[in-house]
Structure formats: C-alpha cells, structure tokens
C-alpha cells in the first residue's frame, strides 16, 4: 500500500474514491431495494430521496420504513434510529484515534459519511488516515446510496431477482476481504474478529442488533487487549 502511494502519487482523495468502489457496488442492491420499499410504503419520491440524502444509514432507514408502515409515531422512529446508530460512537472514536489532525469543520463534514462500511474501509488502512481519503471513500459510497435509492423508487425491479439476491453478499464479502491482509500478518486480528463474531452471535439472541454489535465489539476489543497484555506480547 505504501509503495503504491509513493509510486503513483495519487491524491489521497482519489485513492479514497477508488477504495470506496466496493462500497458503491455493495450499496447498489441495498439502495435499490430501499427505494422500492419506500415507494411501496407510500413515501413520495422527495421523501425517499431526502431520507437517503440526510440520514445515510442503511439499517436505520429500512427500520424506519417498517415502523412507518405499521403506523408508529415520529418519536419512536427517531429513538429507534438513535439506538441503531449509537454504535457509530465507538467507530467514530476509533477513526479519531487513527486520522490525521485537521480542522474541526473538515472533520465535522466528513464525519457525516462514517457508515459501518466507510469506517471499515478507512480504519483497515495502514498508518495515519488522511482526511482526503475518508472524504473520497465516503463520497463515492454516499453517491451510490442516494442515486440508487432514487433509481430504486422508479425502477427497483430493474435487476433480475437472482442478481439482486446475489448482490446481498457484496458488503459481507468486502468486510471479509478487508480483514484478510491484516489477518495474515497478525494473529491478534483473527482473535479479535472471531471473538467478536462469537459474542455477537450470543448477544444477538437477546439484544437488538445495534446493541449487540456494540457489546460484542467492546467485549472483544477489551478482552483481547487484556489477554495479550497478560501474555506479555503486546505489539
């Protein structure tokens, strides 16, 4: 990675755009489906687009559609969104620890785009993360989300069902691909990912998914840290 950065001298922003292409592909079926569902829930085109433009949160938007469909009040919908998205506190803190120092306004702007996927792509980079890189990854992901939500509203069924269903694997495949390079280098990475997966499987039996992901991430991150410290070979 470091060698490509030196040899190509590409700006960190365009590197971010490139690195975000996988997210854009992964968002395509999810956003098309969101647009389609929003229409069937009775939202107008403007409302559908506005939700993707201003909220930019896949799981929360799906959940909101469900709640709107069953006639839930505005407060409950907003509160549920908050609960689902509270996990980003942890992700944002983790990005903060790795990102280059920059003007608070710049950070306030690109922090809007820190979804699970943008977080995953940026924080698995080696070394300090450039603001431009985060902005590039976030921008291409955001464009894919907003544009495909709009397309989905009108032509959601444009893709054959088998392709739409197959593309649902895209984001998971990307998460796995992001883990592999570090997994090969550090045994600790495997311990972190596997223990978090196990904790999440257990916690999700009795917690909503947002809380379960937070709980599993904290338990694994802290637990493995304590274990490696005790073993005396912290990196």
């Amino acid at each position, binding site marked *: 990675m470091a060698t490509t950065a030196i040899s190509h001298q590409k700006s960190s922003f365009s590197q971010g755009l490139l690195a975000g292409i*996988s997210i854009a592909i992964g968002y395509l079926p999810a956003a098309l489906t969101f647009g389609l569902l929003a229409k069937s829930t009775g939202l*107008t085109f403007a409302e559908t687009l506005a939700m993707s433009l201003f*909220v930019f949160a896949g799981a929360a938007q799906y959940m909101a559609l469900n709640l709107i469909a069953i006639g839930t009040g505005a407060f409950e919908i907003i509160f549920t969104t908050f609960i689902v998205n509270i996990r980003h506190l942890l992700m944002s*803190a983790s990005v903060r620890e790795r990102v280059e120092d920059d003007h608070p306004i710049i950070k306030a702007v690109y922090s809007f785009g820190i979804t699970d996927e943008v977080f*995953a792509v940026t924080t698995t980079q080696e070394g300090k993360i450039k603001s431009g890189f985060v902005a590039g990854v976030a921008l291409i992901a955001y464009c894919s989300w907003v544009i495909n939500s709009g397309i989905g509203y009108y032509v959601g069924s444009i893709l054959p069902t088998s392709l739409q269903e197959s593309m649902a694997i895209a984001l998971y495949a990307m998460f796995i691909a992001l883990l592999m390079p570090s997994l090969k280098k550090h045994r600790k990475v495997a311990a972190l990912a596997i223990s978090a997966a196990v904790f999440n499987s257990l916690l999700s039996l009795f917690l909503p998914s947002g809380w379960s992901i937070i709980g599993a991430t904290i338990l694994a991150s802290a637990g493995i840290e304590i274990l490696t410290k005790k073993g005396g070979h912290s990196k």
Partner: protein
Amino acid sequence: MNMTMFLIIAGMAIVTYIPRMLPLVFMDVEKIPNWFQAILRNVPYAALGALIFPGVLTVHENTWFGISGAITAIIVGYLGANLIIVVMSSIAMLMLLSWLF
C-alpha cells in the same frame, strides 16, 4: 412533504449524525489514556467480526448461500486478490448457486 415525515427525516438525520461526529471532532487524542487507545485500535477488527457474523447467514433464505459466499470471499481474499475481485467473486458464486438450485 407532510409535517410528520419532515420531522421523522430531520430527527433521524440528527440522531444519526451526532454519534458519527461527536468523538471525531471533540475527542482529544492526547488526553485518551494508553489502555483506551489500545482498545480503540482493536475496534476495527472486532467490529468487522461482529458486522460479518451472524449477519452473513441471512443474506439469502438458504443459509448455505451466505456460507458459500463467505467461504469464496475468504479463499479469494486469502490469495491476495483486490477488494473488488473478492466482492465480484462472491456475487458470482451466489449467481452460480441460484442457477444450480
């Protein structure tokens, strides 16, 4: 846009943005104790584990589709392929499975 929908979208936007923005803008890295920094550095890999599993089992009504897609991604990713190749291979594997079954 009716008033309720406007409120819903505005409220959702605010409660989504705040958790993403607060730590990034207002957390002072200098003041974070070392042990907490170490934990925060673990977060990406732990979060990836939690984001992948058990969610990957539910990408298709047939659990084996998700498992096959994940195994494809693990193998292709382990061989060192580019991110997009890994993603495309997994999609291709599921397409293949949906033609076969």
